[in-house]
């Protein structure tokens, strides 16, 4: 899709800041290609530390002191053991951190997740490792860890042989109450994706990204539910009241006719709503539209899409890099996370960071845009905003996928 002749991109990248105030920008020492793990810890000495996962090697994770959001300071940055892996996802809970390890090929190591004691942010100390490697496994792509007891993750396993190589990661629940000996307590996969299943494998999508788990959110409001995004399989609500035997409650998908890659599910419990994102994975908006969907979830067995968050004209943004939905602020159930059922903040690659007022969920309204100038060395010539987290002070942290590092902002709407 060609860029409009008069579009900002065709005239050179044009930044937009609307109802956000940029407080600080940190390129993270030249390693500013960030993944989708962002979590805030209040360290024992009172400092506020944001832990950030990197999108790809060579770095593992970076910790930034954001006690003064106008003066961020990198306090720790670690390396991966080799270049054929990434630690795309992490979460902290108190002074413990779980970091996902995914390898680029099957049967490499380390593949799984590692647990750290982060009491001293400058010196994270490994206290446990859960191995998920195997002949058909790339390890863990994403994890959720908010209660200090269980890691819910999208993972492969040595004993799991998928019917299609792309379908290697499924939902696993791991007990980490003894961090030195994590134990799997339950798992669930989409029927038909494991060899030996008694149903046919699912049909492949035009853009085939796999029937596999992505986000695995579990909230204390419904500890018996896992809100599981399953990439090309849409999304599932799982009953995990018996962790050993998760059961499907419901499924919703928009694909086809859309092009799959469902990414994140955030339930808004009071409101009976659900936010669902897809991820744009193709450059030049070839997989447009990738959207943030709003579902009427008053009946969890009958999920009804009622609207999407409005996006600008794709013709303007299709010139370079990815354009479309990806991560949203997930109301992570921690004291250090902002909670809102009125505002949705999401990252849209070259569409930047965008905020929506969903007071009327039938008519979401864009209320803020932060589309900064392309950071120096940006391979696409644009920002590729990848993830967002908001702390309980309502300070917004957003990261670039390739080089831009960390942007710290205030909401001004």
């Amino acid at each position, binding site marked *: 899709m060609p860029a409009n002749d008069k*579009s900002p991109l065709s005239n050179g990248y044009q930044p937009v800041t609307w109802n956000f105030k940029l407080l600080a920008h940190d390129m993270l020492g030249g390693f500013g290609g960030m993944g989708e793990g962002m979590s805030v810890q209040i360290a024992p000495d009172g400092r506020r530390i944001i832990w950030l996962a990197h999108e790809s090697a060579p770095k593992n994770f970076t910790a930034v002191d954001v006690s003064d959001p106008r003066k961020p300071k990198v306090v720790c940055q670690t390396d991966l053991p080799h270049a054929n892996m990434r630690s795309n996802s992490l979460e902290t809970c108190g002074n413990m951190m779980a970091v996902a390890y995914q390898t680029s090929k099957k049967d490499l190591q380390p593949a799984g997740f590692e647990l750290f004691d982060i009491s001293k942010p400058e010196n994270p100390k490994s206290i446990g490792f859960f191995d998920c490697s195997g002949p058909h496994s790339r390890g863990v792509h994403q994890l959720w860890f908010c209660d200090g007891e269980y890691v819910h993750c999208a993972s492969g396993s040595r004993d799991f042989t998928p019917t299609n190589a792309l379908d290697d990661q499924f939902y696993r629940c791991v007990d980490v109450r003894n961090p030195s000996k994590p134990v799997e307590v339950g798992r669930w996969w989409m029927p038909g994706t494991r060899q030996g299943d008694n149903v046919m494998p699912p049909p492949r999508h035009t853009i085939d990204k796999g029937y596999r788990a992505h986000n695995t959110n579990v909230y204390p409001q419904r500890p018996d539910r896992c809100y599981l995004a399953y990439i090309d399989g849409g999304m599932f609500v799982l009953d995990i009241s018996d962790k050993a035997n998760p059961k499907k409650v419901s499924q919703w998908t928009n694909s086809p006719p859309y092009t799959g890659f469902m990414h994140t599910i955030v339930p808004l419990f009071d*409101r*009976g709503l659900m936010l669902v994102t897809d991820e744009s994975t193709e450059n030049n908006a070839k997989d447009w539209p990738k959207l943030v969907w709003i579902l009427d979830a008053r009946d969890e067995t009958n999920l009804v899409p009622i609207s999407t968050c409005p996006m600008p004209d794709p013709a303007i943004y299709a010139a370079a890099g990815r354009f479309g939905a990806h991560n949203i602020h997930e109301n992570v159930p921690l004291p250090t996370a902002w909670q*809102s*059922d009125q505002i949705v903040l999401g990252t849209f690659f070259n569409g930047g960071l965008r905020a929506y007022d969903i*007071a009327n*969920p039938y008519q979401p309204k864009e209320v803020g845009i932060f589309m900064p100038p392309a950071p120096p060395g940006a391979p696409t010539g644009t920002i590729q905003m990848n993830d967002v987290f908001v702390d309980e002070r309502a300070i917004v942290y957003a990261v670039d996928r390739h080089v831009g590092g960390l942007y710290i902002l205030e909401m001004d709407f």
Partner: protein
Amino acid sequence: MLDLFPSREASPFGRRLKRERGARIPVTVVTGFLGAGKTTLLRRFLASPEGQGTAVIINEFGAVGIDDVLVRDSTEETVLLGNGCVCCITRTDLQLALRRLVFDRERGLVPPFSRVVIETSGLADPGPILQTFSTDRALGGEFHIDVVLTVVDAVNGEAALEGMPEARKQAILADRLVISKTDLASPAAVDRLTQRLQQLNPRAAIDVAVAGALDPHRIIEPVTGERSSFVAEAEHGDGIASFVIEQQTPIAWPAFARAMDTLIALRGNDLLRVKGILNVAGCRGPVVVQYVQHFGHPPVELEAWPDANRASRIVFIARSIPERQVRDLFAAVQALAK
């Protein structure tokens, strides 16, 4: 909406806002009689850092000699200016111009402007412009008038105020008044003009600008803070008076709404501007209301009160409506609603 999708975070008026305009595009309306110096003021503002990202709409060509590069008259097209501003000239239709600005911004056809300044013609009554934002729900959802600023020149202003009802109305409806050309008038004349303006509009702060030099923040910063120093009744002439209704105890929203409905039904034409900050029973933050003649903006609840004063305060600028009658109406409706 709260019935279907309840939220502990929201108020009956929707999401609680940090400020009245919420996420809407701020608008400054600049009025002033012919030759008052509006364009000079605007040009200086646009050249300042604060003026960057401003879209300008001139709703009519007046007799003012607008001949500089900032303002172009050719085609009613949106024009990108050298300093990064957008200048749109429309002769007749403010609504179309504003809608088009939003549309073009979304399509990337104009730069992502962050505010709009509307310069009215010298003879314009600002009332209909204010009303436009109340009656056009689409516009009201995108734009919010932060400031109505009226420029009065020190040389001819006094005569204009005496002889022209439009000039008086511009002064009466202003949030801020700016006296221009003080370097060309005697101090005594400036003093007389200042007193006359204070008499016409005791709510508004009065600034002085020589050759258009005015702190740019005075053009764009909303006036909520200044309005908190509500003043007593003032007679403006032309039968127009302003007064403030205050109430210390929380107001039940249905009673307030019904009282306003009654007032509007009976005397809507004479309600030139009504703005209030209300302590509504059951609401955490203050509720801001605005009316222009028959039309009310959707009320918004703010996250926090601007100061320690928790009294409800409503300013009326009205024609031939006695304060006593309004006060009695509110008291009667509240009493009946109990």
